[in-house]
């Protein structure tokens, strides 16, 4: 072979995309770009600039937490939950990870014409039960019906208001070198449960979504220590996105230990099969807490005392090297970085 046999070439870059892609909603770098290029410049204000899961606004000396979330999950019902309970858990969790006590919720329904009334009733009933369990009322709502094809069965939006108690100050920019990183339990269950149900994958052993309201778990931690810096529920984008966001906003590095991160065998197996990394798979009932080192053990004990935190672990620590980067000690003792993905994880060919 002569060298001319090889063409030392590669394609030119694509022009900037002109349309919104599904990946813009993935919680990865495309989502980050959408926020940075479209939304933040339009609405620029100091509260929004905090980029926490909830906005904190001060009214007559009271600190109110305010958040909103939309739910477009398919299928509407999945092992371990449904769109109704998920819509409560998602919004309640966004409030409580800011330290707030949830006060009330709104619920807005966008319904595709033709949806069986029975389906709607089941979702509403599940939403009501989940709200009752979380101790919040749905105090206002809205209904829109769109033509067939205008929505995929049912979309839901919930907003929530909570009250932040005196003395509680949690924010994603509060992490400091030396802090410990706590995780409340095994990761990846929600994402894999929904994926398996949607794609009809026959996996060994049932995988249930971890969808749950974290108000009790958070209250237990905050009662045990005042030395919590910040908390996140690692939803879309998974544990990786939650840690990367905190690392960037606090301008600190992180080192986590792969062997300390719990993953159930069923989830691990499904991920191996599909070529997915559980670090990037969504959770809906897990908590990441960054806690001062001196209080890490008491926070861990408090987590383990709650049914939703029984498998809690300390998975790593915050450091002052490589700010904005999450590093992981692998199962074989080497290191690598845990980056944000561009868009959704794509199943691999082989």
């Amino acid at each position, binding site marked *: *072979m002569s*060298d001319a*046999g*090889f*063409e*030392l*070439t*590669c*394609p*030119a*870059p*694509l*022009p900037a*995309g*002109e*349309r*919104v*892609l*599904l*990946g813009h909603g993935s919680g990865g*770098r*495309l989502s980050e*770009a959408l926020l940075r290029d479209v939304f933040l410049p339009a609405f620029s204000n100091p509260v929004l600039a905090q980029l926490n899961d909830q906005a904190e606004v001060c009214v007559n000396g009271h600190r109110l937490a305010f958040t909103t979330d939309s739910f477009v999950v398919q299928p509407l019902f999945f092992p371990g939950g449904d769109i109704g309970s998920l819509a409560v858990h998602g919004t309640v969790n966004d409030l409580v990870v800011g330290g707030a006590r949830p006060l009330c919720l709104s619920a807005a329904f966008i319904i595709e014409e033709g949806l069986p009334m029975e389906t709607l009733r089941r979702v509403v009933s599940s939403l009501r039960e989940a709200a009752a369990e979380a101790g919040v009322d749905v105090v206002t709502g809205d209904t829109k019906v769109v033509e067939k094809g205008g929505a995929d069965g049912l979309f839901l939006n919930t907003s929530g208001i909570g009250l932040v108690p005196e003395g509680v100050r949690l924010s994603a920019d509060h992490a400091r070198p030396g802090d410990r990183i706590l995780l409340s339990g095994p990761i990846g269950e929600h994402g894999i449960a929904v994926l398996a149900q949607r*794609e009809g*994958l026959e996996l060994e052993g049932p995988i249930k979504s971890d969808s749950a309201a974290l108000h009790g778990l958070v209250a237990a931690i905050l009662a045990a220590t005042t030395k919590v810096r910040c908390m996140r529920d690692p939803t879309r984008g998974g544990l990786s996105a939650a840690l990367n966001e905190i*690392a*960037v906003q606090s301008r600190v590095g992180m080192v986590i230990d792969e062997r300390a991160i719990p993953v159930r*065998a069923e989830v*691990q*197996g499904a991920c*191996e099969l*599909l*070529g997915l990394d559980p670090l990037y798979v969504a959770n809906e009932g897990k908590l990441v807490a960054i806690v001062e080192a001196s209080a890490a053990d008491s926070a861990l004990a408090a987590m383990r005392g709650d049914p939703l935190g029984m498998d809690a672990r300390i998975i790593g620590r915050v450091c002052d090297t*490589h*700010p*904005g*980067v999450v590093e992981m000690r*692998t*199962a*074989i*003792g*080497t*290191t*690598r*970085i845990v*980056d*944000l*993905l*561009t*868009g959704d994880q*794509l*199943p*691999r*060919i*082989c």
Partner: protein
Amino acid sequence: MKYIDEYRNEKTARRLAAKLERLVTRRWVLMEICGGQTHTILRYGLDQLLPEKVRLVHGPGCPVCVTPLEMIDRALYLASRPNVTFVSYGDMLRVPGSKSDLLQVKAAGGDVRVVYSPLQALEIARAHPERDVVFFAIGFETTAPANAKAVWQARHEGLTNFSVLASHVLVPPAIRLLLKSPRNLVQGFVAPGHVCTVMGYREYAALSREFHVPVVVGGFEPTDLLEAVVMLVSQLEEGRAEVENQYARAVKREGNRPARKLVTKVFRVCDRKWRGMGFIPRSGLRLRRKYARHDAEQRFDLTGFSAEEPAECRSAEVLQGLAEPIECPAFGKRCTPQHPLGALMVSAEGACSAYYRYRGWEVIPEGGLP
């Protein structure tokens, strides 16, 4: 978890690394062929455990990366047609053609669907007889049997609305090309374990004899790869050049006979262009004439696609093991997974993408990745 934990074990990894340290007396350059192996090497930072004298370079075994630009343009053209449902494995969706990618075609209204198996594409064809369902049949010998099965089944059932856009490639001709190059640096190969589960490793024995080069069939877990490296270095240090099988729990010498038979029944060997490497004689598979009705290239007019690949990045040198991704001036700057210059930055198994994901911060300035 069985078959996972014992191959991701720190003790075993350290023991193999220590053994390697004792064995090696000279500098050796080794290549792993398969993109899945490249991914493991970077994901587990295996190079951190290797002696300085042993260098791993990354081969052309990422099927997404070597699919030629004009084939992707054909896929984009088909996916844009109103009557076509275009079905693909997930990681092809982000690969740039000359103007767009499948994700953008989908966003613009194209009916593009992701499946985990070509048999799911058959189900779509059965459920939608009014649609022309085209499956993007790419990959090495590993995916060929399932794709062959889908085509065979479609013919058997008389499923006339199902076809495949086939861009299969074969590993041994690419290794031959690398070994014949006067610029070749590679002294030993880790052969692709999954390809060999189908094909066996007789072809690699022939290559080993002809070029007097050691080949070890390797698995995909970190200690699999370390063990394969130990076996290669042992051969090199002892002056041997043989085929050995590290991945014996999955690979037999003769491979999977029924799978090979099915592949031969449906496909025939053809010349194939590889992205970044050019035309390689007898390096691909295309459908036999008997299955022409299920061949998208026969069913649709796909002539007249030619794509210029301007010299923007150094993928081809990386594919041959002549350069490391981080030696490319565009790496992490003008070329990132968000804005890939070449396919090696797109696929999770592409060497550039793996370097970026697991190593990026070492070469990219402070303050995080761009």
